[in-house]
């Protein structure tokens, strides 16, 4: 697929946007955040693009979730970027990302080979 002859390599970029949707005032701390995933580059398109994610879930968890959903192997890895160019650390809570960026555009990169093909948990 790619020009460099490494056909097993693949990359995936997906964008997410976040909007807060608290279920009720008394449950505000458990509010879920709407995450919208968009493909970019060579990324496969996700059939379901919009996900409600607990705000206390971490970036690493989202990456693992995407891996499972797309049936990626343990050799693949997922990197999530916001604002076009910044990868929050895997232990960053989605809620924090939303609070900081409000309308967030998140891109996801998948690496299939080499030392960076590692699980983000």
């Amino acid at each position: 697929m790619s020009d460099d002859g490494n056909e097993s390599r693949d990359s995936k970029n997906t964008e997410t946007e976040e909007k807060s949707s608290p279920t009720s005032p008394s449950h505000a701390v458990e509010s879920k955040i709407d995450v919208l995933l968009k493909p970019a580059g060579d990324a496969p398109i996700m059939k379901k693009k919009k996900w409600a994610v607990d705000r206390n879930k971490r970036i690493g968890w989202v990456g693992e979730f995407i891996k499972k959903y797309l049936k990626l192997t343990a050799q693949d890895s997922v990197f999530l970027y916001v604002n076009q160019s910044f990868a929050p650390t895997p232990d960053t809570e989605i809620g924090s990302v939303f609070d900081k960026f409000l309308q967030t555009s998140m891109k996801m990169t998948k690496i299939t080979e080499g030392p960076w093909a590692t699980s983000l948990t």
Partner: protein
Amino acid sequence: MAAGSISEDEFWNSIISFLTLSSKIDRKWMIIDTQNGARYVKKTEIIKDTENKEHPIEDEDSAVFQGEESLDQSILTWEYHILYSQSFSVPVLYFNVHTQNGKLLSLDEIWKKVPETYQERLSEDRWTFISQQEHPVLGCPYFYLHPCHTAELMKNTPAVTDKRHYIVAWLSAVGPVVGLNLPLEYGKLCAC
């Protein structure tokens, strides 16, 4: 030039953007100029060593000026350097960790501090991934993240279209492996 790599000029332009962010956010990064004209970018962080290295010490004086009889072996100094690799046309992250009495950590000890997230997959590649070599400017042994796969990682990241953001994109993705976590503000101020 291979996709995902950058020229040395682009590298330094991106470093300037990165340092501008640092000056607003944590002021922890600086350029070091040496007598022979070489330069690199550096950050030092003093950490109270816990299982997961979660407690940076902000007041450096209290960490440094303890009585000799009570040198706290759990306080570690992490030093990170960013240099440009001519061979691979990408940035490279060099680092060392030492205790309060100046003893450098070994590769095994460093390895134990890599977050579990990365350890499992890297266990087979650890010696090629984090290894030790002579620092190109200082000439003494430093650990580094091998740059051979950086272009591959970067060619698919968004920042490749705007090279000014290359350093933030690269460092935010690879830094956590060796305990270097960029605050969220770097992403917010790195506006597109």
